[in-house]
C-alpha cells in the first residue's frame, strides 16, 4: 500500500504510532525531524499516488481545530473541522485535494489528545458546537490503522450537546461498528448515482457497498448524514438519482437521517486545471462550465438551480423530509 513510511521524531514513541507501524512490518520506515522537512517540500504529481504513495506519521501543529466556511451543515450552531490527516487513499476525479496540497502523500496526525483538548475549549464556550472530520482526508478509510475514534467517542459522550460528523465514502466500519451509537455522532456518507460513482469516484467502495454500510450502521442505531455532493450532470441524471434515493430510502429510515445535503460540482480555477491535467478524458471535461461570479468554475446559475431542485424533489418523493435537506449554494460556499 505504501512505498515508504516517514515518522516524525516527536511521535515515534506514541502508542498510536506503534500501532500503525505494526500493520506494515515490511515497509521501509525512516525517522525524520519534522514532517514538513519532507512532506510537500517538492511538487509531487497527484497521480503518482497510484504507484508510490508515502505515509507520514506526524504531530499536527498550529490550528488543530478550525472554523468551517459558512453553511457547512445545517442550523445556526458553530461549525468546526479538525485535522486528523492530510490526503486520501481514494481518487475522486473532482476532489479538491488535487490542487490543495503539493503532494498526494498521506499524513496521519497522532496527537489526538491535543486535538481533543482544543475541542474541549471550544465546547466550553459554545456547548452545541459541531465538529466535522474528513475535510482533508476520508474519516474512516484508514481508521482501522489509526483507531482513534473511541477516544473521540468518550469526548462526545461527556459533551452530549456537541456534535461530531465523520465524513466518508468508506465502508471500513471496523473502528466504529462496536462503539455505542450516540445521539450526537453522525456518520455521513457521500453518495452519487451508481453510474456517477463508478465514473468519478475512482478506487472508492461502490455506491452499492456504501449503501450496505449505511444499512449496517442503521441497524446498530447510528445516526446518518448524507451528502449528495458533488452532482455532475449526465443525460440520465434524474433516473440515476431516482434509483439511488429509492435504494437509500430502503436502508435509511427518515428518523435516523440527521441531514441530507445537495450540491453540484464546482472547482477553484487551480483545482480545475489539475483535474484537466489528471483526467483529460473524463466526462467532467465535457461539461458546460463557466467561470462564475466568484472565479470558481461551475455550471450556469439556472443549470445548477435546476439540478439542485430536481434532486431535492427526488429526495422528498422518497420520503426524506424537506426540513432535513439543505442545499450547498454558491452564496453560502
Amino acid at each position: 500500500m505504501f512505498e515508504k513510511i516517514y515518522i516524525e521524531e516527536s511521535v515515534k514513541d506514541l502508542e498510536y504510532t506503534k500501532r500503525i507501524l505494526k500493520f506494515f512490518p515490511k515497509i521501509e520506515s525512516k525517522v525524520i525531524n519534522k514532517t514538513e522537512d519532507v512532506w510537500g517540500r517538492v511538487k509531487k504529481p497527484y497521480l503518482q499516488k497510484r504507484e508510490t504513495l508515502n505515509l507520514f506519521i506526524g504531530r499536527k501543529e498550529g490550528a488543530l481545530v478550525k472554523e468551517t466556511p459558512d453553511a457547512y451543515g445545517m442550523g445556526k450552531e458553530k461549525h468546526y473541522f479538525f485535522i486528523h490527516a492530510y490526503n486520501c487513499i481514494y481518487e475522486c476525479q473532482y476532489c479538491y485535494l488535487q490542487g490543495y496540497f503539493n503532494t498526494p502523500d498521506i499524513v496521519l496526525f497522532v496527537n489526538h489528545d491535543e486535538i481533543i483538548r482544543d475541542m474541549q475549549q471550544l465546547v466550553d464556550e459554545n456547548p452545541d458546537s459541531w465538529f466535522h472530520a474528513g475535510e482533508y482526508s476520508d474519516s474512516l478509510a484508514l481508521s482501522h490503522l489509526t483507531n482513534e475514534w473511541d477516544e473521540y467517542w468518550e469526548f462526545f459522550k461527556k459533551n452530549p450537546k456537541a456534535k461530531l460528523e465523520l465524513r466518508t465514502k468508506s465502508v471500513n466500519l471496523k473502528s466504529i461498528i462496536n462503539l455505542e451509537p450516540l445521539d450526537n455522532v453522525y456518520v455521513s456518507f457521500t453518495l452519487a448515482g451508481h453510474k456517477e460513482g463508478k465514473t468519478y469516484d475512482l478506487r472508492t467502495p461502490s455506491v452499492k457497498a456504501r449503501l450496505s454500510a449505511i444499512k449496517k450502521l442503521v441497524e446498530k442505531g447510528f445516526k446518518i448524514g448524507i451528502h449528495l455532493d458533488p452532482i455532475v450532470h449526465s443525460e440520465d441524471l434524474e433516473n440515476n438519482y431516482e434509483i439511488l434515493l429509492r435504494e437509500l430510502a430502503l436502508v435509511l429510515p427518515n428518523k435516523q437521517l440527521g441531514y441530507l445535503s445537495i450540491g453540484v460540482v464546482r472547482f477553484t480555477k487551480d483545482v480545475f486545471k489539475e483535474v484537466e491535467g489528471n483526467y483529460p478524458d473524463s466526462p467532467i471535461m465535457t461539461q458546460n462550465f463557466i467561470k462564475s461570479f466568484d472565479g470558481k468554475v461551475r455550471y450556469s446559475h439556472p443549470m445548477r438551480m435546476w439540478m439542485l431542485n430536481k434532486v431535492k424533489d427526488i429526495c422528498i418523493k422518497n420520503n426524506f423530509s424537506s426540513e432535513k435537506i439543505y442545499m450547498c449554494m454558491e452564496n453560502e460556499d
Partner: protein
Amino acid sequence: MKLIHIAHRGEAQEFLKVLNLKADTKVSGIYSNSEFALVISGEGIPETISKLSYTISKFNIDEILNFGIAGTLSSKIETGKIIEIRTTYHFEDGKPKFKSFTSNSKTTIDCITTNQRVLSDDYADRISNFAQVVDRELWGLGFVAKSFNLPFKSYKLISDIAGSKTQCFDLKERAIEFSSKLLEHFMKLDTKAEEPQLSIDPPITMSFSNKIKFQKLIHHIQTKEEIKLERILSDICVNEILDLKIRPKEKSFEILKRLEAKLNPINTIANNEMIKATQAFREIGAKVKFDHSLETKKIEISIEINSQKNLDNIKRAVDIFDYKKIEKLWSGDFNV
C-alpha cells in the same frame, strides 16, 4: 525530430559513430542527421539549459531523450542497470527546490539533480527523501522541456552508489563502456513518431474552424454519453438537416447547434427560454443583450426613439414583458 541529450562527450561517443551525426559548424557539442539532433551539454544545470535551449530553437524538435549515468540512493536499485526516470527534482544549497518536472515514462523511479557531487552518506540520506537516484543535469532538461512544451524521457545507467561509497572513477576510463550500454538501450527503443489519430469527418463540407468544433463536440458527446457516432448523428436528425433547402454554411451551423444542444441540453433550453421571454422587445426592433453563460440575470435593451410610435411600442413591450419569467428561469424552474 528527436533531440538526444548527453552530458559528457565520453558517454556520447558511440552515438556519434553509429548514428552518423554531423557536427554543427557554429556551436560545439551539437550534432544532427535527418532524424536526430544530439547535444553534449557538459555537466550541470546551467550548461544543460543553455545548450538545450539553443538546440531546440535551431531544429524542429518533438521530444527530448536524455541518456546518462546516475548514482543510486536506494538499496533497491542496483548498479549496472539502466532505468527510466519518472519525475525529476532539484536539490540546491541544502534545500529541495519546489518545482519538479515529470517525463512521459510510466515508471516509478524519480531522479534528484544536485548542484554538487554526493560524497557523504548524510547528504545522500537527505536527498533520498525525494528520489531514488541522483544526477547533475536532468532537472535542467525538465525545465527546458516544460518551457518549450516538449515531452521528455530519461534513461539512466546506474554507475555507482551515491554517498561515501561514491566511486570517484575517471569517467574517461569507463566512458566507452557506459556509452556502449546506453547506445544499446537506445537502439532497442521505438523512436518512430506516433501515428496521428484518425479524425472524424463531418457529414457536410465545413470550414476548418467548424470542422474542429464538430470534432470536439462529437468527442465530448461520446465521452459523456458513451454512444457511437452514428447514434449521435441520428439523434440530431442529420439527414433532415442535409435535405433542407438552405445554404451549406447554414446546414453546418444547424448541425453544430443541434450537437451543442445535445451536449448541453439544459443551458440550450435556458437560453431559448431567455430569448422567448424577451421576444416582445425584439419584435419592436430593440436590441436585446444578455449574458449567454446565464451567470447574471441582467438584460440590456436598447432602441432608438425618433417618434411617438417608438414610445408606444416600448410601452406595449414593457407591459407584455414579465420579469418573473426571468426570475423563474434563474432559479432553475423550467422543464427539460
